[in-house]
C-alpha cells in the first residue's frame, strides 16, 4: 500500500484544500492487495471510510469499509481474495480544477449517490479524496461559526468578539479573550499575542493553543527571528499571511524557518499591534520616550498559526485579525489610560487622605482651642463678675451688649435687663446728657477717662472714674469703612478704622477721693503748722546772728551758726518734700504762658546772688531773649536749684556760667536728639568748674536722695531732692533735663523748654 506522497503546490492553492474539505492522504492500495492486508490497513486507520485501488497513480477502483465487511461476511475464503475483487468500477472522480465551488461537488455526490469522490489532476493522477461526511462537517462548521463572506455576518462576528473583549477592563484578560476567540473562530491551532520588548526581543504574553501543539508562552524569541528592520516594517502597518512557511515565495529567512519548524508551524498570519503615542500619558508613564520622535510604535503582533497543515488565509480572516489588533491597541491605550487614571486616583486618594488627616487634626486642635476658649471665657467671666468695677460693652448705637454682675450689686439692675438697652435708658436722661460728650469722643475713636458722680442702689452718691476704650476695626475687614474710603473721607482714622463700639470701665473712687481730701488737708496743715514755727525759729536765729541783740561768747556764736545753718536746711527740706509730693500727686498746676528767657535768668541770678557772694563765686550770663511757653516761677525755681548746686560744688573764686539759646542739636545728647529736634525749644545750660560727676552717676543723680556722695547733703546742706524736683518741673513743661560732666573739670546741666507756640509759628507779632 502506498500513500500519496505530497500535495503539489498548485493544488494547495485550492481554497477547499485549505479548508480541510479534501483528505490529501487517502488510504490507497494496489488492486492485487489481499483483503486481509486491506482489513489491517483499515483497522489501523479507523477514521478512513474507504480505500482506493490505484495503478500508476490512477484510481482504478474504490472499496468502502462496508464493501469490505460485506465481502468478508459473504465469502468464507475471503483471505485469499484480492482488493480488485471487491472494488467498484469505474470510479467517479473529479478534477481538482473543477472543485473550487463546493456546490457542484455536493451535487455530484448526490447525483451518483456516492460518499467518496477522488480528486485527480488533468492526467488522472490521484490528488486526494473528498469525503462527503467530512465535507458536510466542514460546511456545518463554517455555518455554525458564521464564517460567511456576507458583510452583515462579519460585522456581527466582529461585534460579538469586541463585546467579549470589552467585558473586561483588565488588559491581561482582554488579551486572553482575544486569542481564545480568534482561535475558536479561525479554527487555528495557535493564536498568540507577542509583545515587543524595548531591547528588540519579545515574548508571548497571551496564547490559545490546541493540543497537541506546545505552548509558546515562556519561550524566549531570539532577536534574529524578529529583527529590528522587521519591527519597523510592522510598525508601518505590514501584514504577513503565509500559507506555507516552506514555500520559497513566502520569503522567510532560514533561521526563522528553523525556529518555526521547532513548533510545527505550517502556516501563519501576522498583523501588527501598533499604538499611537499619546505624549501626555507617555510623560506621565516615565517620560523615557521622545514624544516628537515617532507618532506610532509597534507594541506587538497578533499571530495565528496553523500546525496541522498549510493554510490559505482568507481576506476576511486578515481583515478580522487586523480589526482585532486594532481593538487590542485600543484596549492597550485604555489599559494605559486606566493605569494612568488609577495612578491619579491613588495619588488623589493619598492627597485626600492627607488632607483629611490634616483636617481631622485641625478639627481636634480647634476643639481644644474652643475648649480652652470656653474655659478662658468662664474664667474671664468669673473675674469680671468679681472685680470691683462696672464692666460693659456698648455698641456704636449706644446700646449695652455686655455687663458684668457688678451692675446688679451697685445699680440694682440685672445685666440681663440692661443688655440691649440704651445708655440713656440705663443711666437716665440727666446723667446721659452730662456724659454725652465723652460718649461722642469714644465713638470718634478716642480713649476717654473722666470722673463723675453716680447714685448707687442704696441711694448714696459715689464718685466714679469712668474709662471708655474704643473697639476699633481695621478698614480691610469693614465694608462700611470701604464706603468711607470711596466717599473720600479726609479723616485718616476714619479711613483706616471703624469704631464698632466701646468698653466702659467704671471704678468707684469715693474712697480715693476721701483720702485725697484728707491728704490735701494734711498738706495744708503741714504747710502752715510746720512752716510757721520754722519761720519763727529761722527768723529768731537770723536776728540773733546779727549780734544786734547782744554778743555771745565764741562757743555760743558757733552753736548759733550751727542752729542757723540747720534751720536753713530744715526749711529747704520741708519745702522740697512738700513740693515734690505735690508735683508727683499731679496737684501742681503748671500755669504756662509766654515768658522771656532773659527775664527769667535775671530773676534767678538775682535770687541766688547772695549765696554766690557768700561762696565767692561769679555768675556769668549769656542769655538770648527767647519766648518760651512756661510757668516762670517753676523755671526760676529750676534755675536757682541748678545754680545753687553749681555754686555749692565750685571752688571759691571760680565762675559759674548760665546761658540760654535755641536748641543746638550738636549739644543735645543722642538719646534725646530726636525729641529735641521734633520741635523748637530753648536750651538752658548751667556750667561749673567743680569736681565733676562720675559718668555712671549722670542719670541717677536725678533720682531722689541720689547724690554723688551721700555725705554731700550734710557737707553742702542739700536735701537730695533738688534735681528730682527740677526734672519733674522740666518734664511737666514738656522738656528734657540731663547732665554732662568730666571728673575734675566740672559739669554742665542742660534742660529744654518748648518755645512759645506763637514764636514757633513765626508770628510777626510778639506774644502778649
Amino acid at each position, binding site marked *: 500500500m502506498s500513500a500519496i506522497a505530497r500535495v503539489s503546490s498548485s493544488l494547495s492553492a485550492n481554497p477547499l484544500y485549505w479548508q480541510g474539505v479534501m483528505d490529501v492522504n487517502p488510504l490507497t492500495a494496489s488492486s492485487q492487495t489481499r483483503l486481509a492486508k486491506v482489513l489491517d490497513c483499515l483497522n489501523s486507520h479507523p477514521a478512513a471510510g474507504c480505500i482506493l485501488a490505484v495503478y500508476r497513480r490512477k484510481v482504478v477502483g474504490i472499496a468502502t469499509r462496508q464493501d469490505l465487511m460485506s465481502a468478508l461476511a459473504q465469502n468464507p475464503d475471503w483471505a485469499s481474495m484480492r482488493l480488485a475483487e471487491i472494488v467498484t468500477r469505474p470510479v467517479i472522480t473529479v478534477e481538482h480544477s473543477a472543485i473550487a465551488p463546493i456546490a457542484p461537488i455536493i451535487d455530484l455526490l448526490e447525483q451518483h449517490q456516492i460518499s467518496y469522490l477522488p480528486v485527480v489532476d488533468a492526467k488522472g493522477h490521484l490528488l486526494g479524496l473528498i469525503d462527503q461526511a467530512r465535507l458536510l462537517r466542514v460546511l456545518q462548521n463554517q455555518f455554525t461559526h458564521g464564517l460567511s463572506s456576507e458583510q452583515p455576518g462579519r460585522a456581527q462576528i466582529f461585534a460579538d468578539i469586541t463585546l467579549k473583549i470589552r467585558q473586561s477592563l483588565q488588559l491581561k484578560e482582554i488579551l486572553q479573550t482575544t486569542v481564545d476567540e480568534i482561535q475558536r473562530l479561525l479554527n487555528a491551532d495557535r493564536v498568540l499575542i507577542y509583545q515587543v520588548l524595548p531591547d528588540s526581543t519579545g515574548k508571548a504574553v497571551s496564547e490559545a493553543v490546541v493540543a497537541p501543539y506546545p505552548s509558546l508562552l515562556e519561550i524566549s524569541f531570539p532577536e534574529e527571528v524578529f529583527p529590528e528592520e522587521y519591527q519597523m516594517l510592522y510598525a508601518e502597518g505590514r501584514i504577513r499571511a503565509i500559507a506555507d512557511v516552506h514555500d520559497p515565495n513566502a520569503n522567510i529567512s532560514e533561521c526563522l524557518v528553523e525556529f518555526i519548524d521547532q513548533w510545527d508551524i505550517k502556516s501563519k498570519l501576522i498583523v501588527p499591534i501598533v499604538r499611537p503615542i499619546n505624549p501626555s500619558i507617555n510623560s506621565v508613564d516615565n517620560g523615557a520616550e521622545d514624544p516628537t520622535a515617532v507618532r506610532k510604535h509597534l507594541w506587538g503582533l497578533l499571530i495565528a498559526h496553523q500546525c496541522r497543515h498549510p493554510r490559505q488565509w482568507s481576506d476576511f480572516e486578515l481583515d478580522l485579525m487586523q480589526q482585532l489588533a486594532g481593538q487590542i491597541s485600543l484596549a492597550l491605550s485604555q489599559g494605559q489610560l486606566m493605569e494612568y487614571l488609577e495612578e491619579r486616583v491613588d495619588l488623589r486618594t493619598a492627597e485626600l487622605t492627607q488632607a483629611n488627616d490634616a483636617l481631622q487634626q485641625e478639627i481636634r486642635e480647634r476643639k481644644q482651642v474652643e475648649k480652652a476658649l470656653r474655659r478662658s471665657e468662664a474664667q474671664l467671666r468669673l473675674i469680671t463678675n468679681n472685680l470691683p468695677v462696672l464692666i460693659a460693652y456698648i455698641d456704636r448705637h449706644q446700646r449695652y451688649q455686655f455687663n458684668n454682675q457688678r451692675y446688679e450689686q451697685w445699680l440694682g439692675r440685672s445685666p440681663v435687663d440692661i443688655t440691649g438697652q440704651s445708655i440713656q435708658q440705663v443711666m437716665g436722661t440727666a446723667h446721659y446728657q452730662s456724659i454725652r460728650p465723652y460718649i461722642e469722643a469714644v465713638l470718634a475713636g478716642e480713649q476717654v477717662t473722666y470722673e463723675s458722680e453716680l447714685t448707687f442702689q442704696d441711694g448714696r452718691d459715689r464718685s466714679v472714674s469712668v474709662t471708655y476704650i474704643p473697639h476699633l476695626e481695621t478698614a480691610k475687614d469693614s465694608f462700611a469703612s470701604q464706603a468711607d474710603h470711596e466717599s473720600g473721607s479726609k479723616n485718616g482714622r476714619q479711613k483706616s478704622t471703624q469704631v464698632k463700639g466701646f468698653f466702659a470701665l467704671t471704678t468707684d473712687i469715693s474712697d480715693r477721693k476721701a483720702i485725697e481730701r484728707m491728704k490735701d488737708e494734711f498738706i*495744708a496743715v503741714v*504747710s*502752715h503748722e510746720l*512752716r*510757721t*514755727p*520754722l*519761720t*519763727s525759729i*529761722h*527768723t*529768731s536765729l*537770723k*536776728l540773733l546772728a*546779727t549780734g*544786734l*541783740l547782744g554778743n555771745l561768747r565764741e562757743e555760743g556764736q558757733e552753736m548759733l551758726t550751727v542752729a542757723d545753718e540747720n534751720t536753713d536746711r530744715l*526749711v529747704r527740706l520741708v*519745702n522740697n518734700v*512738700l*513740693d515734690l509730693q*505735690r508735683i508727683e500727686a499731679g496737684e*501742681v*498746676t503748671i*500755669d504756662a504762658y509766654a515768658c522771656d528767657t532773659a527775664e527769667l535768668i535775671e530773676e534767678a541770678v538775682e535770687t541766688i546772688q547772695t549765696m554766690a557772694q557768700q561762696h565767692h563765686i561769679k555768675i556769668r550770663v549769656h542769655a538770648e531773649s527767647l519766648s518760651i511757653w512756661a*510757668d516762670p*516761677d*517753676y523755671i526760676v525755681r529750676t534755675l536757682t536749684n541748678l545754680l545753687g548746686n553749681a555754686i555749692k560744688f565750685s571752688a571759691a573764686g571760680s565762675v559759674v556760667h548760665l546761658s540760654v539759646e535755641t536748641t543746638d542739636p550738636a549739644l543735645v545728647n543722642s538719646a534725646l536728639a530726636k525729641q529735641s529736634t521734633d520741635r523748637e525749644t530753648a536750651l538752658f545750660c548751667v556750667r561749673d568748674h567743680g569736681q565733676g560727676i562720675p559718668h555712671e552717676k549722670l542719670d541717677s543723680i536725678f533720682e531722689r536722695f541720689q547724690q554723688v556722695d551721700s555725705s554731700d547733703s550734710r557737707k553742702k546742706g542739700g536735701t537730695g531732692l533738688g534735681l528730682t524736683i527740677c526734672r519733674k518741673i522740666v518734664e511737666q513743661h514738656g522738656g528734657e533735663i540731663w547732665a554732662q560732666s568730666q571728673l575734675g573739670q566740672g559739669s554742665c546741666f542742660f534742660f529744654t523748654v518748648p518755645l512759645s507756640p506763637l514764636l514757633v509759628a513765626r508770628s510777626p507779632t510778639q506774644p502778649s
Partner: protein
Amino acid sequence: MHSPKRILIVDDEESIQKVVKLSLKIEASWEGITASSGKEGIRQAESCQPDAILLDVMMPNMDGIATFAALEKNPKTRAIPVILLTAKTQASEKRLFQEIGVAGVITKPFEPLSLASKISQLLNWI
C-alpha cells in the same frame, strides 16, 4: 536807708508777730504794731492807720482773705496797702492772692534781714 514806717502785723502766731516786729526794727528801724486776729487787725488799722499791713492768710475764725475783704470795704482802711504773709507756696495760690488786689505776697519762712527791703520793693517805697 529806710524812711520811718509803721507796719501792722496781723498773725495768730505770737512768735511770728515777735520775729517780724524785731526784723523790721533791726533792719529798718520800722515800728511794728501787732494784732492776733482779723478783727483785731481791722480795729488796729482803723485806729493806728499804719503805712502797711502784713496779713497772715491762715487764721482761725476770720482768715486773711476775709480780713482783706473787710479792710477793702472799710473807708478808713481802704487806702492802707496790704501784703499777705503766707505759708502757701503754690504759684497758683500766690497768683490768686494777687488777683484779689493785695499789694504783694511774702512767703514764710522769709529772710528777716531783707524783709523791710522786700516790703519797700513791693510797695515802691524805694
